[in-house]
């Protein structure tokens, strides 16, 4: 009795294991949505206190004004602009002002971007322009730090080494993009 039991091997048939695994694999393949948690980051200004409203005077030359109306037309520094991809170069020149042009910002620290939209402006053009504005600053930072703009954006601030690169790039130049409350000319 005991002998015959020992002779016949009690094995589980593992041949269909691959099939089962395939089935599960296909289920997960189909249900997977690789999350795309990437985008443009922004910090909103704090809620203003009614008690202390200080009027800060900003020199006109330091301001880089971008406005978009409800028909998605751009007005940059008082002039109409059809191609929003030019904004990046314009802003870099405005911030750094290499030729000491008296109409551009006094110093990179003083430069401020004023970005104004209308309630009827489409979100797409808003993102495109914001992308250009942030891109200009990242490019300035990256050049100072000696890395590419893409590397600069991907820096992990928890790593002290990478944080040092970030600090060297950013330095004392703030990313001063002020997003004004939209006007309501176009209506919505």
């Amino acid at each position: 009795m005991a002998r015959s039991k020992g002779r016949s091997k009690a094995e589980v048939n593992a041949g269909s294991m691959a099939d089962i695994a395939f089935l599960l694999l296909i289920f997960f393949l189909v249900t997977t949505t690789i999350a795309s948690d990437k985008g443009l980051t922004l910090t909103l200004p704090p809620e203003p206190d009614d008690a202390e409203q200080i009027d800060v005077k900003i020199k006109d030359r330091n301001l880089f004004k971008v406005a978009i109306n409800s028909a998605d037309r751009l007005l940059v520094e008082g002039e109409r602009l059809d191609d929003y991809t030019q904004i990046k170069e314009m802003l870099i020149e405005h911030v750094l002002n290499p030729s000491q042009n008296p109409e551009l910002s006094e110093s990179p620290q003083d430069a401020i971007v004023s970005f104004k939209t209308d309630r009827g402006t489409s979100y797409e053009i808003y993102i495109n322009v914001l992308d250009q504005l942030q891109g200009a600053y990242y490019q300035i930072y990256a050049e100072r730090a000696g890395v590419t703009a893409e590397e600069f954006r991907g820096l992990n601030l928890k790593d002290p080494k990478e944080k040092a690169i970030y600090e060297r790039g950013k330095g004392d130049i703030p990313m001063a993009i002020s997003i004004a409350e939209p006007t309501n000319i176009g209506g919505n």
Partner: protein
Amino acid sequence: MSKFKKKSNASQEIPTSALPDIIFMLLFFFMVTTVLRETEIKVEQTIPKAEQLKKIERKSLVSYLYIGKPKQTEKFGGEAKIQANDVFIEPRDILLWVAKEKDKLAEAERDKITIAMKVDSEAKMGIISDVQQQLRKANARKLMYNTLKLTSKDKNNSLL
């Protein structure tokens, strides 16, 4: 000649005994990466594209708002709406929603909450700014506009 005959006799089967292991490995990869969707998105979502993307560092601190035209226009109208979790909310409800989302986090991390907005390209800035005003009031000031990566192909298309 005899040499060739010998070769043809050798079995030419691929060993498949390691196949389940390979499949299991793939399976585990997809099991780990899968995020089962908790909410059904009820608004149109054609996300715009941008270049200057940043990644969110800690996903647990993120709450999502979906903004766009409702998919069921006959039921909810054609005006852009805000979806939070599973329901449509009005801009004035955002204060309460943010408070609820903050309650889910540990106390020390409540100020670090990030609101990720997934907004349809066709939405107007009016509704976005209403949301932002409310977020400022709710003191949830870290914001992210979810976008897709702009590829060089898209750039060429836009130039044409």
